Protein backbone atom coordinates (compact mmCIF):
# COMPACT_ATOMS: atom_id res chain seq x y z
CA UNK A 1 0.00 0.00 0.00
CA UNK A 2 2.76 2.39 0.86
CA UNK A 3 4.44 2.63 -2.56
CA UNK A 4 1.02 3.05 -4.08
CA UNK A 5 0.23 5.96 -1.78
CA UNK A 6 3.59 7.53 -2.63
CA UNK A 7 2.88 7.30 -6.33
CA UNK A 8 -0.46 9.04 -5.83
CA UNK A 9 1.15 11.75 -3.72
CA UNK A 10 3.86 12.25 -6.33
CA UNK A 11 1.26 12.54 -9.10
CA UNK A 12 -0.70 15.11 -7.09
CA UNK A 13 2.43 17.13 -6.43
CA UNK A 14 3.37 17.06 -10.11
CA UNK A 15 -0.13 18.14 -11.05
CA UNK A 16 -0.17 21.05 -8.63
CA UNK A 17 3.29 22.21 -9.65
CA UNK A 18 2.34 22.03 -13.30
CA UNK A 19 -0.59 24.27 -12.60
CA UNK A 20 1.72 27.03 -11.39
CA UNK A 21 3.33 27.65 -14.79
CA UNK A 22 0.33 29.62 -15.94
CA UNK A 23 -0.31 31.61 -12.81
CA UNK A 24 0.26 35.36 -12.75
CA UNK A 25 3.40 36.65 -11.05
CA UNK A 26 3.60 36.93 -7.31
CA UNK A 27 1.87 40.15 -6.15
CA UNK A 28 1.30 41.17 -9.74
CA UNK A 29 -0.93 44.24 -9.77
CA UNK A 30 -2.21 43.25 -13.19
CA UNK A 31 -3.39 39.79 -12.19
CA UNK A 32 -7.10 39.03 -12.48
CA UNK A 33 -7.48 38.67 -8.72
CA UNK A 34 -6.25 42.26 -8.27
CA UNK A 35 -8.12 43.81 -11.15
CA UNK A 36 -11.51 42.14 -11.21
CA UNK A 37 -13.17 42.71 -7.85
CA UNK A 38 -10.55 44.11 -5.48
CA UNK A 39 -10.63 47.70 -6.81
CA UNK A 40 -14.36 47.77 -6.21
CA UNK A 41 -13.98 46.65 -2.63
CA UNK A 42 -11.14 49.05 -1.94
CA UNK A 43 -12.77 52.08 -3.53
CA UNK A 44 -16.33 51.63 -2.36
CA UNK A 45 -15.77 49.63 0.81
CA UNK A 46 -15.39 52.62 3.09
CA UNK A 47 -18.24 54.61 1.56
CA UNK A 48 -20.65 51.72 1.72
CA UNK A 49 -19.84 50.24 5.10
CA UNK A 50 -17.94 52.95 7.04
CA UNK A 51 -15.31 50.37 7.88
CA UNK A 52 -11.71 51.32 7.14
CA UNK A 53 -10.45 47.74 7.28
CA UNK A 54 -11.40 46.31 3.91
CA UNK A 55 -10.86 42.75 5.08
CA UNK A 56 -13.46 43.13 7.80
CA UNK A 57 -15.87 44.80 5.41
CA UNK A 58 -15.57 42.00 2.88
CA UNK A 59 -15.65 39.28 5.50
CA UNK A 60 -18.55 40.48 7.57
CA UNK A 61 -20.62 42.41 5.09
CA UNK A 62 -20.08 41.65 1.42
CA UNK A 63 -19.61 37.96 2.08
CA UNK A 64 -21.36 37.73 5.40
CA UNK A 65 -23.39 34.74 4.29
CA UNK A 66 -20.13 32.77 4.07
CA UNK A 67 -19.01 34.02 7.44
CA UNK A 68 -22.31 32.99 9.00
CA UNK A 69 -21.77 29.47 7.81
CA UNK A 70 -18.12 29.52 8.83
CA UNK A 71 -19.16 30.23 12.39
CA UNK A 72 -21.75 27.49 12.05
CA UNK A 73 -18.95 25.14 10.91
CA UNK A 74 -17.11 25.92 14.13
CA UNK A 75 -20.30 25.35 16.09
CA UNK A 76 -20.86 22.04 14.30
CA UNK A 77 -17.34 20.95 15.23
CA UNK A 78 -18.02 21.38 18.92
CA UNK A 79 -21.36 19.65 18.60
CA UNK A 80 -19.77 16.69 16.83
CA UNK A 81 -16.95 16.36 19.33
CA UNK A 82 -19.44 16.53 22.18
CA UNK A 83 -21.77 13.96 20.64
CA UNK A 84 -18.94 11.55 19.95
CA UNK A 85 -16.86 11.91 23.09
CA UNK A 86 -18.99 13.07 25.99
CA UNK A 87 -19.98 10.25 28.28
CA UNK A 88 -22.38 10.79 31.11
CA UNK A 89 -22.82 7.18 32.09
CA UNK A 90 -20.79 6.21 35.10
CA UNK A 91 -18.74 3.23 34.19
CA UNK A 92 -15.18 2.11 34.11
CA UNK A 93 -13.16 4.95 32.73
CA UNK A 94 -11.24 4.10 29.62
CA UNK A 95 -8.43 6.38 30.61
CA UNK A 96 -5.63 4.70 32.44
CA UNK A 97 -2.84 7.11 31.76
CA UNK A 98 -0.82 8.82 34.38
CA UNK A 99 -2.21 12.22 35.11
CA UNK A 100 -0.31 14.37 37.58
CA UNK A 101 -2.35 15.86 40.35
CA UNK A 102 -1.29 19.35 41.15
CA UNK A 103 -3.92 20.45 43.56
CA UNK A 104 -2.67 23.10 45.92
CA UNK A 105 0.81 23.27 44.46
CA UNK A 106 2.73 25.34 42.05
CA UNK A 107 2.24 28.89 43.15
CA UNK A 108 4.47 30.16 40.37
CA UNK A 109 2.23 28.91 37.59
CA UNK A 110 -0.87 30.24 39.25
CA UNK A 111 0.70 33.61 39.90
CA UNK A 112 1.78 33.92 36.30
CA UNK A 113 -1.65 32.85 35.12
CA UNK A 114 -3.30 35.37 37.37
CA UNK A 115 -1.26 38.16 35.91
CA UNK A 116 -1.52 37.07 32.28
CA UNK A 117 -5.13 35.97 31.92
CA UNK A 118 -6.83 39.35 32.55
CA UNK A 119 -4.49 41.06 30.12
CA UNK A 120 -5.17 38.35 27.59
CA UNK A 121 -8.91 38.78 27.90
CA UNK A 122 -8.69 42.54 27.53
CA UNK A 123 -6.54 42.05 24.46
CA UNK A 124 -9.10 39.60 23.08
CA UNK A 125 -11.86 42.15 23.50
CA UNK A 126 -9.66 44.79 21.88
CA UNK A 127 -9.01 42.53 18.91
CA UNK A 128 -12.69 41.75 18.62
CA UNK A 129 -14.03 45.27 18.77
CA UNK A 130 -11.16 46.99 17.00
CA UNK A 131 -11.66 44.82 13.95
CA UNK A 132 -13.06 47.77 12.03
CA UNK A 133 -9.74 49.57 12.12
CA UNK A 134 -7.00 47.02 12.52
CA UNK A 135 -6.44 43.37 11.66
CA UNK A 136 -8.61 41.22 13.82
CA UNK A 137 -12.21 40.44 14.35
CA UNK A 138 -14.52 37.84 15.73
CA UNK A 139 -12.52 34.73 14.94
CA UNK A 140 -9.23 35.98 16.30
CA UNK A 141 -10.69 37.67 19.35
CA UNK A 142 -12.78 34.63 20.14
CA UNK A 143 -9.83 32.30 19.86
CA UNK A 144 -7.73 34.46 22.16
CA UNK A 145 -10.55 34.66 24.68
CA UNK A 146 -11.01 30.90 24.54
CA UNK A 147 -7.26 30.41 24.92
CA UNK A 148 -7.39 32.36 28.15
CA UNK A 149 -9.78 29.79 29.60
CA UNK A 150 -7.59 26.98 28.31
CA UNK A 151 -4.62 28.62 30.03
CA UNK A 152 -6.66 28.83 33.21
CA UNK A 153 -7.44 25.15 33.16
CA UNK A 154 -3.85 24.28 32.27
CA UNK A 155 -2.43 26.28 35.15
CA UNK A 156 -5.04 25.35 37.72
CA UNK A 157 -7.08 22.30 36.88
CA UNK A 158 -9.90 21.39 34.58
CA UNK A 159 -12.35 21.32 37.47
CA UNK A 160 -11.39 24.81 38.55
CA UNK A 161 -11.98 26.13 35.05
CA UNK A 162 -15.25 24.24 34.81
CA UNK A 163 -16.49 25.83 37.97
CA UNK A 164 -15.83 29.24 36.45
CA UNK A 165 -17.28 28.44 33.05
CA UNK A 166 -19.74 25.59 33.30
CA UNK A 167 -20.16 23.05 30.56
CA UNK A 168 -23.83 23.85 30.07
CA UNK A 169 -22.99 27.54 29.83
CA UNK A 170 -20.36 26.77 27.18
CA UNK A 171 -22.87 24.97 25.01
CA UNK A 172 -25.38 27.77 25.40
CA UNK A 173 -22.72 30.29 24.37
CA UNK A 174 -21.86 28.16 21.32
CA UNK A 175 -25.42 28.27 20.09
CA UNK A 176 -26.17 31.83 21.16
CA UNK A 177 -23.27 33.36 19.26
CA UNK A 178 -24.39 31.83 15.99
CA UNK A 179 -27.98 32.63 16.92
CA UNK A 180 -27.03 36.28 17.40
CA UNK A 181 -25.49 36.33 13.94
CA UNK A 182 -28.39 34.62 12.24
CA UNK A 183 -30.84 36.62 14.35
CA UNK A 184 -29.43 39.87 13.03
CA UNK A 185 -29.94 38.51 9.56
CA UNK A 186 -33.53 37.69 10.44
CA UNK A 187 -34.10 41.16 11.92
CA UNK A 188 -32.92 42.68 8.65
CA UNK A 189 -35.32 40.35 6.88
CA UNK A 190 -38.14 41.51 9.12
CA UNK A 191 -37.28 45.14 8.39
CA UNK A 192 -37.89 44.57 4.73
CA UNK A 193 -34.35 44.08 3.49
CA UNK A 194 -32.73 40.88 2.37
CA UNK A 195 -31.29 38.36 4.78
CA UNK A 196 -28.14 39.87 6.37
CA UNK A 197 -28.68 43.26 4.72
CA UNK A 198 -27.51 45.26 7.71
CA UNK A 199 -28.91 48.45 6.26
CA UNK A 200 -32.22 47.19 7.61
CA UNK A 201 -30.97 48.01 11.09
CA UNK A 202 -30.92 51.71 10.24
CA UNK A 203 -34.53 52.19 11.23
CA UNK A 204 -34.04 50.46 14.58
CA UNK A 205 -30.85 52.24 15.52
CA UNK A 206 -31.74 55.62 14.11
CA UNK A 207 -28.62 56.02 11.99
CA UNK A 208 -27.89 56.18 8.29
CA UNK A 209 -27.69 53.07 6.15
CA UNK A 210 -23.92 53.21 5.97
CA UNK A 211 -23.49 53.51 9.73
CA UNK A 212 -26.06 50.77 10.21
CA UNK A 213 -23.84 48.48 8.14
CA UNK A 214 -20.91 49.36 10.36
CA UNK A 215 -22.92 48.58 13.49
CA UNK A 216 -24.19 45.38 11.94
CA UNK A 217 -20.63 44.27 11.26
CA UNK A 218 -19.77 44.93 14.90
CA UNK A 219 -22.72 42.90 16.15
CA UNK A 220 -22.06 39.91 13.95
CA UNK A 221 -18.38 40.00 14.88
CA UNK A 222 -19.44 39.81 18.50
CA UNK A 223 -21.62 36.81 17.67
CA UNK A 224 -18.76 35.09 15.89
CA UNK A 225 -16.49 35.88 18.83
CA UNK A 226 -18.88 34.34 21.36
CA UNK A 227 -19.29 31.18 19.29
CA UNK A 228 -15.59 30.73 18.63
CA UNK A 229 -14.67 31.37 22.25
CA UNK A 230 -17.18 28.86 23.57
CA UNK A 231 -16.24 26.30 20.94
CA UNK A 232 -12.55 26.48 21.78
CA UNK A 233 -13.33 25.94 25.46
CA UNK A 234 -15.79 23.16 24.68
CA UNK A 235 -13.33 21.35 22.43
CA UNK A 236 -10.67 21.60 25.10
CA UNK A 237 -12.99 20.33 27.85
CA UNK A 238 -14.08 17.36 25.81
CA UNK A 239 -10.73 16.41 24.36
CA UNK A 240 -8.53 17.00 27.39
CA UNK A 241 -10.72 14.99 29.72
CA UNK A 242 -11.54 12.26 27.23
CA UNK A 243 -15.21 12.99 27.56
CA UNK A 244 -15.78 12.31 31.23
CA UNK A 245 -15.07 15.84 32.51
CA UNK A 246 -13.29 14.41 35.50
CA UNK A 247 -9.76 15.64 35.12
CA UNK A 248 -7.82 17.07 32.28
CA UNK A 249 -4.37 17.76 31.06
Amino acid at each position, binding site marked *: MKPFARIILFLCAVMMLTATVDLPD*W*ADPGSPASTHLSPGFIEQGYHETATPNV*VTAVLADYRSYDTLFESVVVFAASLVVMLVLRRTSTGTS*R*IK*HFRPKREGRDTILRGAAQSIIPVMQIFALY*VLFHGHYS*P*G*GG*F*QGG*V*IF*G*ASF*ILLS*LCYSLKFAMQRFKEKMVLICCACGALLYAGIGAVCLAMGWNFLGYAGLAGLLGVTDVMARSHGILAVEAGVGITVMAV*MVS*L*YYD*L*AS*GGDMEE*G*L
Partner: protein
Amino acid sequence: MTWDANLLWQFDMLILLMMVICAVAALSLKGLVSSAVVTGAYSFFTCLMWTHMMAVDVAFTEAAVGAAVSTVIIVATAQYINPWSKD
Protein backbone atom coordinates in the same frame (compact mmCIF):
# COMPACT_ATOMS: atom_id res chain seq x y z
CA MET B 1 4.77 49.37 4.22
CA THR B 2 5.48 48.39 0.67
CA TRP B 3 6.23 44.96 -0.54
CA ASP B 4 9.47 44.47 -2.38
CA ALA B 5 9.76 41.16 -4.14
CA ASN B 6 13.54 41.27 -4.35
CA LEU B 7 14.32 42.36 -0.84
CA LEU B 8 13.90 39.20 1.14
CA TRP B 9 13.55 36.23 -1.16
CA GLN B 10 16.19 34.38 0.86
CA PHE B 11 14.02 34.77 3.92
CA ASP B 12 11.12 33.42 1.92
CA MET B 13 13.12 30.37 0.88
CA LEU B 14 14.28 29.81 4.45
CA ILE B 15 10.72 29.79 5.79
CA LEU B 16 9.56 27.48 3.02
CA LEU B 17 12.46 25.14 3.73
CA MET B 18 11.63 25.10 7.42
CA MET B 19 8.00 24.40 6.59
CA VAL B 20 8.98 21.42 4.47
CA ILE B 21 11.29 20.16 7.22
CA CYS B 22 8.54 20.51 9.82
CA ALA B 23 6.00 18.77 7.62
CA VAL B 24 8.31 15.82 6.98
CA ALA B 25 9.31 15.69 10.64
CA ALA B 26 5.70 15.70 11.81
CA LEU B 27 5.04 12.66 9.67
CA SER B 28 8.18 10.74 10.44
CA LEU B 29 8.65 11.41 14.16
CA LYS B 30 7.87 8.66 16.62
CA GLY B 31 5.40 9.63 19.26
CA LEU B 32 2.25 11.58 18.86
CA VAL B 33 3.10 14.36 21.29
CA SER B 34 6.30 15.26 19.49
CA SER B 35 4.44 15.22 16.18
CA ALA B 36 1.90 17.56 17.72
CA VAL B 37 4.60 19.96 18.84
CA VAL B 38 6.21 19.93 15.41
CA THR B 39 2.81 20.64 13.89
CA GLY B 40 2.68 23.70 16.11
CA ALA B 41 6.07 24.76 14.80
CA TYR B 42 4.81 24.26 11.27
CA SER B 43 1.88 26.54 12.05
CA PHE B 44 4.30 29.13 13.37
CA PHE B 45 6.26 29.12 10.12
CA THR B 46 3.05 29.35 8.15
CA CYS B 47 2.21 32.37 10.26
CA LEU B 48 5.59 33.94 9.44
CA MET B 49 4.92 33.26 5.80
CA TRP B 50 1.58 35.03 5.94
CA THR B 51 3.16 37.99 7.68
CA HIS B 52 5.77 38.08 4.98
CA MET B 53 3.01 38.15 2.40
CA MET B 54 1.48 41.13 4.22
CA ALA B 55 -1.64 39.15 5.06
CA VAL B 56 -1.72 40.20 8.69
CA ASP B 57 -5.27 39.03 9.35
CA VAL B 58 -4.53 35.53 8.21
CA ALA B 59 -1.25 35.48 10.10
CA PHE B 60 -3.06 36.57 13.22
CA THR B 61 -5.61 33.81 12.90
CA GLU B 62 -2.93 31.26 12.15
CA ALA B 63 -0.93 32.29 15.21
CA ALA B 64 -3.95 32.14 17.49
CA VAL B 65 -5.59 29.02 16.10
CA GLY B 66 -2.82 26.98 14.53
CA ALA B 67 0.15 27.63 16.73
CA ALA B 68 -1.59 28.09 20.07
CA VAL B 69 -4.97 26.51 20.58
CA SER B 70 -4.89 23.61 18.15
CA THR B 71 -1.47 22.51 19.40
CA VAL B 72 -2.82 22.39 22.94
CA ILE B 73 -5.88 20.50 21.78
CA ILE B 74 -3.84 18.03 19.73
CA VAL B 75 -1.54 17.37 22.67
CA ALA B 76 -4.56 16.96 24.94
CA THR B 77 -5.96 14.41 22.52
CA ALA B 78 -2.67 12.65 21.95
CA GLN B 79 -2.33 11.77 25.62
CA TYR B 80 -5.24 9.36 25.29
CA ILE B 81 -3.89 7.56 22.26
CA ASN B 82 -0.76 6.32 24.04
CA PRO B 83 1.56 9.29 23.59
CA TRP B 84 4.70 7.24 23.01
CA SER B 85 3.23 4.85 20.51
CA LYS B 86 5.31 4.12 17.46
CA ASP B 87 2.82 5.21 14.84
